[in-house]
């Protein structure tokens, strides 16, 4: 019997899967080609140049762990993972906004260097806003269904 509680459960889990898969798919090529990602980071011209390798190593791992936490199903870790990925996404949005404001033309690097060069602009920003909304849904409790 399908009722509101089940629909809500399905929606929350769909959001969790979408968020986790998005971040995992984003993280893996960046882990694979760390140097390429470091280059993309430098192109943003926001962080000190010497930090680009550290950032390139750490951010994708945080994305991966956050994605795993969301898929874990345990409310405690789902919430924590959502906060972590949410903070990351807010940071990405801020970065993109800064790039748009400064008129820098660069390749997003969001899905790694190998991915088709994706110019950073408003579409990228709105996509991340949608991701943030999905994270918000994914963070909802599923143990108690309301």
């Amino acid at each position: 019997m399908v009722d509101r509680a089940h629909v809500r459960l399905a929606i929350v889990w769909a959001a969790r899967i979408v968020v986790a898969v998005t971040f995992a798919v984003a993280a893996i090529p960046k882990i694979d080609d760390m140097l390429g990602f470091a280059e993309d980071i430098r192109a943003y011209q926001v962080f000190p140049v010497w930090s680009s390798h550290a950032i390139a190593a750490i951010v994708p791992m945080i994305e991966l762990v956050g994605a795993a936490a969301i898929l874990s199903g345990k409310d405690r870790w789902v919430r924590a993972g959502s906060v972590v990925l949410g903070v990351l996404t807010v940071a990405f949005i801020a970065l993109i906004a800064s790039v748009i404001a400064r008129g820098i033309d660069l390749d997003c690097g969001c899905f790694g260097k190998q991915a088709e060069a994706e110019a950073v602009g408003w579409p990228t920003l709105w996509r991340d806003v949608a991701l943030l909304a999905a994270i918000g849904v994914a963070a909802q409790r599923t143990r108690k269904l309301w």
Partner: protein
Amino acid sequence: MTWFALARDTLIVGTAGALLGVVSLAVRLDVPWLAPPPGPEPTACGVDESYATGAPSAPELPRIPVDDLGRRLDGVVIVDARSAAAFADSHIPGAISLPADDIDAIVASQSLPLPIDRDIVAYCDREGDIDALYVGLAIDAALGCGRVRVLDGGFTAWVAAKSPVEGIDRSG
């Protein structure tokens, strides 16, 4: 769930990711932890920008007057393009003998006895001789550094300026 618990769990997840990232960075041992972007390619020969000739294929090399060479005697590599006999007789102190006749063979066998991190000055007998230019261009092409000059006036000018020379003792 309290805010404190959420903050703590968030910190745990974030730190776990950061630690994994640090480990992944350390695992790639050939990547420096904090690496500046690759700078401009280090110049092959010497550090004096004013020595740069530009295109190594130019049929001419910049000149250096005797006085300048005299001042820079220790910092440059000096190449004697004259015959071995002339070199043995008398040459600029510290010079290396690379006669114009032999330079092609030496370059072909890749046994140029020259360090590539210093400026190079080639000289021949006198102004108007092209041996030094020939040897200098060959060296420039072989090393590809664009840091080779020719001594203005050649060995004749060097001696005329009463600069020091080395050579076999001719008293006997």
